């Protein structure tokens, strides 16, 4: 309802031209549109409408265009780079996942239900960005004077962002595998016109996402560790090894290492790998926005930037 009122106000507002319209976009605009896209997808549980797929694709596309306009406009006005703040990082992550959701919607059969798994995640990340994430820099107070530090800091952020995207995909593939596997184990027929990918397909997607995510996360973390050491030597400030964000990110990396190892251990195949993918995502979620939501202090974008700096 708030979303509809927001749109009406926007449409009837005194905005001058397209620039003014884009300037009035809020997170609620695209989050609401994504919400409607999810609702349209969920309609399949109640009725069979041919137009459902078109509505879902149309609303997802609209939401994604609005989000793109919002990110472009805000980034231009605030001169913000992609991964400078927790708020921005989460919005960019949700934007990439939104694009993947749209791609899968269009490419897969119309009964496919990847959107039922991806869209709640997109909405969850947007919600976390708006509700808990700080709009100040990830490493506010730690200093980033030299262009080299700036460059490697951004590279560190981008690599972790890319790793996060694939972690999310591994999680979604894992969830779809677990749901499908559970259905088949219990001999239940497919319902509500939902078509999940075959176990083999989900396994392949999960494996591909893990194989790509691991080197990205490793490189991102390594750069972060080296930056931390360099900043410590140059300015005497650092993020402590016991910082909750560092611990949760390292835990996620360890889970990924186990996942990669498990690929070569036949007895680990199937459900266990999928459960580990879910665990990896939980660590990612905790590291990205869990700290802020739970008000756990961290020197690296946590609820209170005062904690953890040694």
């Amino acid at each position: 309802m708030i979303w509809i009122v927001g749109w009406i106000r926007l449409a009837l507002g005194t905005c001058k031209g397209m620039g003014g319209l884009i300037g009035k976009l809020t997170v609620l605009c695209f989050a609401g549109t994504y919400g409607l896209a999810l609702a349209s997808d969920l309609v399949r549980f109640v009725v069979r409408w041919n137009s459902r797929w078109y509505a879902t694709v149309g609303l997802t596309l609209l939401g994604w265009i609005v989000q793109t306009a919002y990110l472009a406009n805000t980034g231009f006005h605030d001169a913000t780079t992609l991964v400078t703040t927790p708020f921005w990082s989460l919005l960019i992550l949700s934007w990439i996942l939104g694009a993947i959701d749209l791609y899968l919607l269009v490419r897969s059969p119309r009964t496919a239900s990847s959107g039922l798994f991806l869209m709640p995640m997109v909405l969850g990340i947007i919600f976390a960005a708006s509700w808990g994430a700080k709009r100040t820099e990830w490493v506010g107070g730690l200093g980033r004077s030299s262009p080299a530090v700036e460059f490697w800091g951004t590279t560190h952020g981008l690599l972790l962002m890319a790793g996060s995207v694939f972690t999310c995909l591994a999680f979604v593939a894992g969830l779809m595998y677990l749901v499908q596997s559970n259905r088949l184990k219990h001999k239940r027929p497919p319902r509500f016109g939902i078509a999940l990918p075959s176990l083999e397909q989900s396994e392949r997607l999960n494996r591909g996402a893990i194989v790509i995510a691991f080197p990205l996360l490793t490189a991102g973390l390594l750069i972060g560790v080296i930056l931390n050491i360099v900043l410590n030597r140059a300015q005497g400030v650092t993020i402590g090894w016991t910082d909750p964000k560092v611990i949760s990110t390292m835990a996620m990396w360890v889970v990924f290492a186990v996942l990669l190892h498990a690929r070569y251990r036949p007895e680990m195949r199937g459900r266990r790998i999928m459960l580990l993918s879910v665990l990896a995502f939980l660590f990612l979620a905790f590291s990205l926005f869990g700290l802020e939501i739970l008000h756990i202090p961290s020197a690296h974008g946590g609820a209170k930037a005062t904690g953890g700096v040694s």
Partner: protein
Amino acid sequence: MKLLALGTDHRHAPADVREAIAFDGSRREEALDALSAEFPAAEVAILSTCNRVEIYAAGSEEAVPSTGALIDALARFHKVPAERFERHLFDYHDDRAIAHLFRVAASLESLVLGEGQIIGQVKEAYSAAVDRKTIGSILHAVFRHALFVGKKVRSETGLDQGKLSIASVAVDVARDVFDTFVDKTVLVIGAGKMADLTLQHLADLRPGRVIVTNRTPERAEIAAKKWGGQVYAFDRLGEALAEADVVVSTTAASEPIVNAETYKRVQRKRRNRLALILDIAIPRDFDPKIGDIDNVMLYHVDDLQAQTEANRARRAKKVDPALAIIETETAECLANLRHKQQAGDILRQLGDYADAARVREMEALFNRCPDLNESQRNAIAHTLHRLQNQFLHHPRAALRSAAADPPNEHPHPLLNAVRRLFGLSES
């Protein structure tokens, strides 16, 4: 306007009666020609499948034959006494005939509810009538609408969702487990009828390799030859299981031939890859505990049977929503037909009215000018004819356009306007 549907199906007649009056192959075309010759003013179409034989006739009140006349024609064509099949026939008229064809196209009248073949058969009936030119504006509209309704019912209710045979459910399960089959090995244990039927369905998935094993090697050889597979001696069952991704087991063994411990060892050899076991045998060939092993999907014939029953029940629940769609579409189809017929009547009346006025005035002119020669008279007649056509061009075009529109109001306001403007009757 009158419509008649006369026929019989699996519910009304035994197979021998249906066979006696069926129109197989070119017999349908011959029958269409014969009926068209006997009832030249009527539109005719014939739907003939293994479960039903139906004749549709449409036209004006006088043009459409009576049920009795059509039965006689049917008896004459098949050279079968009418008494043999008459009591097995049903006949529907007007809106009930339309609704019946819609139910048939939606497969509500089929032996297997929601089956997909019937819509193709209705399309064939329509095409055959179009080819033999035995179909006119009424049956054109009704058959095209029936094809639309058939698709609409399926897409909006999901009446065709969920397989109804054990073998096809097994194939669906295989598709839920595996993405591609070109790199998969299918093992068939036993070589009976059920194995043959399941393999027939699995062959659609184009598996990369088929292995057949049986206690009687000769029967395994026959099955392997038929499906392009390899034969493994029955004592190599463990080896065959380790190589197989999909197992179809149909032996007549009185006790399970594979227990959980054995299959755990097999899975270790298989490096715990995904496996699907379709145990079609009664009693079971595979210990049910095998289903608890990670990455192994074990389906017994009872599980597959339960799914077919559930699908059957789910389809039955879709009948009421399907009937609601058919009711709405029947009313719409009938309204469209009446609307088109009204527009056609007005066009005809308009033409007659203009012709009469032209001829009357032309004759009056010729009477007043008796000196006009033949060539001058022809020129005047031609000019008046062209003038009439030019005057009527736009009203006719507007009427045809209104006839093509779905009727939101009865009658269309344009039809009333033309009637009043030209003083045409209501008939």
